[in-house]
């Protein structure tokens, strides 16, 4: 009996010592503990709607981006301080003295999850896909600066119209040129890319999730449904996807990046309303919230349990209302300006707990070239009415306004905008749609007159935001990110001049000049630059928020 008692005491003492040691290394509430990442566990996320694709040519929202970066890797990446670092590339590219030729070398031992080694041909193929109209890439713009891109796209276009219908992605190309002349594999691991004109942002482009490397045989095998059968070089693979319900990724041991990925699995539950997400999070059913709705923000911020768990990236998320410049009444600049004066942006911002600043232009204030001196549109309903009268609107206006109910902040904003505009005689008819429907229809020409959007910059350069959103030459009939369908020849010309400019100062000046014109043309109601928030559970460590693609969860761990 006594022996047992002694054994128990010793055992208990030992346990206590281990426990104390363990508590020490857990590091309290600090999230940036780099001492001992724990392996294992399932990271649980949620999203309000289902994702549409994990094909880099068509990804759009935060979850699609997050998952793409778990399953795939690009040549380059950003670290937490926004510096470009090599990822699948061995080192940063060698750039020729005139700035137009980029040479990369792939890291040794990079493999796709099916075991096949990554080659330079894969890199060429992945970037080339964006230029092939068969894949409906929304980001072709990024790669059109490559030499021979235009000719390549044209040739593929001809092939497509000659043989219509659903065709699997075969590599049966017939019309010259069969490849993009500016891009080729020098040897098995070396790629050389030549740009038509030098472009300071090309490295940034190669660090975006759109530039991840995909395996050709998988694209051809799955054809149109490659978007839902991803296969990449990243530390996670797709295990299971019940459309509209749940998506599960599991750890991939043969990736070059497996060692830094600590969790066993990532589970994304889709189709859950924001309010339910918050409740689930507070009950511990989720590990991470990618956004905090205005309704719960103050409460959570003041909650001592989550003191150190709210991550904030200031002002990087512009929220704007697009006014379709090709559809009446927004063909008239005066009307668009009037609406800008009619909306009390400061009050709306207050309604979402002042988490941001009023916008006076297009660029978020975290991006180089942001112009704090833009005049903006102060709240002036009298001026709004005057402008409307000047535009010939005497009996008021009625406009359909497409909004999302699933994004609470946007919904509340929309309700307030409706009120503000009603005060100057503009009646907005609210049409509640899903995110998918908004993307589908809003990016299609001539369908949506007015809607509310947000934007996340891909990288820290004005070209990124401006080129996609307000460049008239980027307008396409479908999948167009310039959702205001705005085109001003002077602006388009400035884009042409700014892109190849190697003098950074001059470049920024040109972009600022064109932003001034855009701000004056008012293709949007410029609302505000919202802060981006993420809320993690106390036990989720290793997360830092970034100002573009803020949610990157490859290297987090669960300390439970």
């Amino acid at each position: 009996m006594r022996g047992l008692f002694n054994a128990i005491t010793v055992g208990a003492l030992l346990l206590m010592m281990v426990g104390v040691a363990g508590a020490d290394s857990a590091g309290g509430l600090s999230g940036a503990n780099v001492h001992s990442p724990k392996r294992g566990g399932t990271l649980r996320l949620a999203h309000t709607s289902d994702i549409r694709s994990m094909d880099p040519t068509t990804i759009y929202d935060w979850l699609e981006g997050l998952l793409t970066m778990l399953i795939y890797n690009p040549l380059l990446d950003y670290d937490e301080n926004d510096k470009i670092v090599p990822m699948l590339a061995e080192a940063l590219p060698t750039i020729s003295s005139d700035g137009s030729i980029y040479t990369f070398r792939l890291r040794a031992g990079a493999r796709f999850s099916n075991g096949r080694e990554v080659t330079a041909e894969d890199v060429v193929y992945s970037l080339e896909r964006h230029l092939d109209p068969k894949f409906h890439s929304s980001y072709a713009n990024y790669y059109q600066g490559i030499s021979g891109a235009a000719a390549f796209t044209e040739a593929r276009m001809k092939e497509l119209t000659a043989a219509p219908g659903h065709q699997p992605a075969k590599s049966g190309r017939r019309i010259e040129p069969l490849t993009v002349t500016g891009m080729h594999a020098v040897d098995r691991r070396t790629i050389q890319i030549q740009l038509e004109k030098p472009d300071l942002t090309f490295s940034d482009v190669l660090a975006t999730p759109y530039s991840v490397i995909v395996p050709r045989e998988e694209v051809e095998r799955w054809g149109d449904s490659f978007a839902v059968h991803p296969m990449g070089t990243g530390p996670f693979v797709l295990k299971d996807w019940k459309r509209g319900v749940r998506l599960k990724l599991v750890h991939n041991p043969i990736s070059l990046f497996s060692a830094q990925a600590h969790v066993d699995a990532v589970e994304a539950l889709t189709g859950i309303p924001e309010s339910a997400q918050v409740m689930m999070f507070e009950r511990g059913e989720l590990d991470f919230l990618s956004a905090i709705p205005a309704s719960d923000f103050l409460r959570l911020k003041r909650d001592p349990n989550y003191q150190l768990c709210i991550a904030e990236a200031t002002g990087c998320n512009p929220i704007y209302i697009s006014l379709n410049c090709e559809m009446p009444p927004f063909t008239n600049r005066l009307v668009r300006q009037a609406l800008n004066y009619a909306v009390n942006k400061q009050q709306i911002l207050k309604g979402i707990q002042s988490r941001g600043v009023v916008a006076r232009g297009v660029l978020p204030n975290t991006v180089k070239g942001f112009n704090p001196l833009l005049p903006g549109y102060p709240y002036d309903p009298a001026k709004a009415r005057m402008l409307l009268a000047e535009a010939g609107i005497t009996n008021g206006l009625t406009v359909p306004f497409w909004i999302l109910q699933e994004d609470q902040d946007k919904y509340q904003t929309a309700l307030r905008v409706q009120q503000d505009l009603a005060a100057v005689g503009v009646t907005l008819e609210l049409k509640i749609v899903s995110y998918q429907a908004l993307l589908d229809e809003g990016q299609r020409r001539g369908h949506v007159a007015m809607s509310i959007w947000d934007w996340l910059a891909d990288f820290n350069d004005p070209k990124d935001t401006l080129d996609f959103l307000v460049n008239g030459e980027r307008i396409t009939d479908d999948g167009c990110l310039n959702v205001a369908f705005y085109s001003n020849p002077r602006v388009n010309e400035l884009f042409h001049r700014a892109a190849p400019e190697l003098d950074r100062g001059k470049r920024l000046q040109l972009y600022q000049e064109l932003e001034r014109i855009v701000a004056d043309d008012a293709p949007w109601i410029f609302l505000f630059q919202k802060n981006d928030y993420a809320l993690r559970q106390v036990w989720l460590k290793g997360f830092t928020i970034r100002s573009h693609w803020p949610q990157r969860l490859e290297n987090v761990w669960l300390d439970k």
Partner: protein
Amino acid sequence: MLTRFLNRFIWSVLTLVGTAVLTFFLLNAVPGDIAKVIAGSKASPEVIQEIHARYHLDDPWWERLGLYLGRLARGDLGHSYVTDQPVLEAILMRLPTTAALASVAGVMWMVIAVPLGVLTARFSGSWFDRLTLVVATLSLSLPAFWLARMLQYWLSYKLAWFPVATFQSVRHLLLPAATLAILSIGYYARLIHTNMVEVLESPYIRAVRAKGASETRVLFKHALRNAVIPVLTILGMDVAAMLGGVLFIENVFALPGIGTLAVQSVYNLDPPMIMGTVLFSGVLVVGANWVVDLAYGWIDPRIKTGS
């Protein structure tokens, strides 16, 4: 028995056909290309043209109706505008969740409604009876979405007795099923009550009592069986009403069932999916009615012999 079986089957099919015809006219009233319904909204103009030709979409409406019904008979409900997934496939994927929810709810309300109905009949006219009447009427007056939200807030969020949302285990179904059950309990408890009262006053029961059977025996063995039969009929018809409640409950608790699919399809601007869910729910109701009718015939021998 067989003739009855066939009879009901034919009427069920005809009812479904009628519903399908109604749906066809609704779909035609919607501007938009039927070809897109078949091919999916991402199809190229050439494909659309080809489908126009192949399916005779420029033909008169009665021919198209015929084609439409033909496709339906083969189980082709078209493709989602949004995901290009076949509508029927999407619905069938979600059916188990809705079925599970309905079944658990069914068990719950039976467990509560039956004893309530029996006891209130036994003590008819008492304060217990009157109270149950008020509570039952109250349960009929609750909006499904409101009740779901309230229960979710108090029992899942505040008290953490149940998970908040989604369907990951049977435990996740308990609160949604309870919500659904509460909505129906009132009605069924009263129904059983009424039937029990009627039956308890019948000559048959008086005879059984005269023979000296105990009260419990009278209540449960004899009276209940006869009282339950009309309930079955109502149950069949009420699948329609129950599906309505399911819609909101699935929405609030983020359960991946047919209800959320229907609601999502409205926001997704997805007419084929909307119509598909409408038709499918019709199939469920008709099917339930048919099954109930057969069960009715089996349970009640008087009906079998047609007397």
